[in-house]
């Protein structure tokens, strides 16, 4: 379903993603782990047509995202690391807009929006502005939205960041359920090892732009002769803490906080 071959992304002299190759099979739940700044999000951005790779080959459902960006975009749903909802619009309006963007026919759109909002327990709040939602509700809405156009692949970039254990638990239950019922291929990144251990069939560990290990959670534990995935992760990536420089988006956010009463 996803093929990556020799993928590289450079920002000036800095190599964010360094010659990685991997395959994700149809119907699989695949976890992409790595410390901050390992290149996970950069890889996802390249897979989802948001960034041009410096070199290497990519294939999503047999299509090159660079050549057939529109076709590729129809085939995946994505939940970004940062929220991407319009807070001034209601939950329903956010869903509706997404449905129109992805050319979901009206009738199907209406039934599917209701079905998904009910599944993620947001139907009662469909007419409330999203800015009044809690973090967990926003995340659920984003996942519901990402599934509206029945994508073949669902990208989840740290979807459980900042959520309480109850919400995380519920969220993964939904994702697993959808993977089983709709056969969606799931490509996820997370910092919570227990989540990857529980949901993912295969795991790739990335560090400094390279894939340092690939296999099932069991494989990784055996390979590093450790008892848990967390220990295996630390054995593979070391225990130094990585610093990420503040991105321009972050700076903008800091600035916006000063002006937050604008919205």
């Amino acid at each position, binding site marked *: 379903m996803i093929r990556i071959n020799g993928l590289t992304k450079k920002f000036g002299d800095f190599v964010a993603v360094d010659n990685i190759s991997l395959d994700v099979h149809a119907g699989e739940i695949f976890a992409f782990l790595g410390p901050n700044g390992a290149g996970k999000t950069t890889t996802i951005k390249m897979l989802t047509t*948001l960034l041009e790779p410096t070199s290497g080959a990519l294939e999503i459902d047999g299509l090159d995202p660079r050549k057939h960006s529109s076709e590729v975009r129809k085939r995946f749903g994505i939940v970004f690391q940062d929220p*991407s909802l*319009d807070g001034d*619009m209601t939950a329903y309006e956010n869903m509706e807009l997404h449905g129109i963007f992805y050319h979901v026919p009206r009738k199907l759109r209406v039934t599917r929006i209701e079905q998904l909002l009910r599944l993620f327990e947001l139907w009662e709040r469909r007419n409330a502005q999203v800015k009044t939602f809690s973090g967990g509700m926003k995340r659920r809405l984003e996942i519901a939205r990402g599934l509206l156009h029945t994508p073949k692949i669902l990208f989840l970039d740290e979807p459980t960041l900042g959520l309480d254990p109850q919400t995380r638990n519920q969220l993964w239950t939904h994702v697993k359920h959808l993977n089983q019922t709709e056969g969606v291929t799931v490509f996820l990144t997370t910092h919570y090892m227990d989540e990857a251990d529980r949901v993912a069939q295969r795991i790739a560990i990335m560090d400094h732009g390279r894939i340092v290990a690939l296999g099932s959670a069991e494989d990784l534990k055996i390979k590093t002769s450790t008892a848990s995935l967390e220990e295996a992760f630390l054995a593979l990536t070391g225990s130094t803490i990585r610093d990420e420089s503040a991105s321009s988006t972050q700076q903008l956010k800091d600035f916006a906080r000063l002006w937050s009463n604008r919205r």
Partner: protein
Amino acid sequence: MSVIYILWLRELRRYVRSRAQLVASLGQPLLYLVALGFGMGPVFRKAGEGSYIQFIAPGVIAMTVLFSSVFSGIGLLWDRQFGFLKETLVAPVPRIQIMFGRTLGAATVAVIQGLLVLVISFIAGFRIVNLKAAPLALVFMLLIAGLFAALGTTIGSVLQNMQGFQLIMNFLVMPIFFLSGALYPLNNLPKLFAMVTSIDPLAYGVDALRTILIGVTHFGLVWDAAVLLVIGGMLLLIGSHFFSKIQA
């Protein structure tokens, strides 16, 4: 088509929902109308130019349309920061449609703001000389709004963060307003200054509104329309180019 419509609708919904902003954005035009309109009135009359309220009302309407449309265009920066921009960027929709829908929405909001100021200026004593030509004023307001919404979108696509915003305000938007002749007649200006005002697109917008609403003209209506159309079209092209280049 429906993509353009839903993005247009989104701009309108946001406008209607942010009532505080709606009221706040009418404060400035009101101040110009009242403080300058009544304050400068006697001097203007003494200079033999007639009623100052009559004179600046079209200018203040043009100013409202300018600010409102540029800001809505720059609203792109807010979308970038609140993340919604990414949702539009990964959608299987040509970027030009997204840019077009946004710009159209921003322009519509700006025209509504302009009409509100028109109503306010009525209360302040402004009168349209030729009521039959008034619908034509709406067309020109839309032209001004479209032009500057496209400019705003261009700026929003190029700027990465809000730091550049003050720069744009002080060195682009404010000069566009002050050099447009919204507050003073463009006749008998020093030569160099007159040249600068003649490259300001808003000068043509103000002139058109003044021609239609109070029957005083400087460039002539046909010339005004031509300049607004050509520059607006160019900015729309430039804007779509930069918008299509945005990477997340």
